């Protein structure tokens, strides 16, 4: 069964350091999403890609966060510098339809900033 892959699964970093997360969507899925989930809350969208283009990054804190999907397949989300408030689960999802619909999530990366 096809799955969304993410790495690393866990990351501990000190504040002011840089951190990066990687995601490989389900093969053939053109749309890729990065979400942040704080404990006890639902996922909140950070950025959405359609192929290699950013469709929505209105909630991405652009002063410290960046995301890219250079070849329209896998994607990287970077935080520099990390802050204590960035501690959360970072989830990647992908969907087949260009207009959203059913999204399939990866296992997530649990980030702890100390």
């Amino acid at each position, binding site marked *: 069964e096809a799955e*969304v892959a*993410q790495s690393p699964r866990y990351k501990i970093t000190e504040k002011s350091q840089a951190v990066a997360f990687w995601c490989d969507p389900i093969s053939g899925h053109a749309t890729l*999403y990065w979400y942040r989930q704080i404990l*006890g*809350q*639902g*996922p*909140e*969208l950070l950025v*959405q890609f359609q192929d290699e283009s950013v469709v*929505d990054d209105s909630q991405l804190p652009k002063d410290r966060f960046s995301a890219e999907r250079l070849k329209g397949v896998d994607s990287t989300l970077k935080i520099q510098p990390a802050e204590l408030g960035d501690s959360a689960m970072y*989830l990647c*999802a992908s969907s087949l339809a260009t*207009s*959203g*619909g*059913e*999204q*399939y*999530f*990866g*296992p*997530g990366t*649990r980030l702890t900033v100390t």
Partner: protein
Amino acid sequence: EDQVTQSPEALRLQEGESSSLNCSYTVSGLRGLFWYRQDPGKGPEFLFTLYSAGEEKEKERLKATLTKKESFLHITAPKPKDSATYLCAVQAGYSTLTFGKGTMLLVSP
């Protein structure tokens, strides 16, 4: 602004004790309502999509229903392995998903 409210926040059931989870939503032009299951420390797992009022979908012990203002996730004769957080999300038009905070379900043997 799209809003999704899930209730209760947490629910504890005995094995075999049926119940329902609620998802109330406010959205302009519902395109779809989605239910996900999330186990601790893992990503959400897709369960159902509902598109229009009156629609129902079933999977094992779960049945999801939709009205114009809310959706219910009915759990019939739950088992301990049904313990998880259940998330509801809505999509309006071509926008992305707006999630609720989830209902944490614990089923005791």
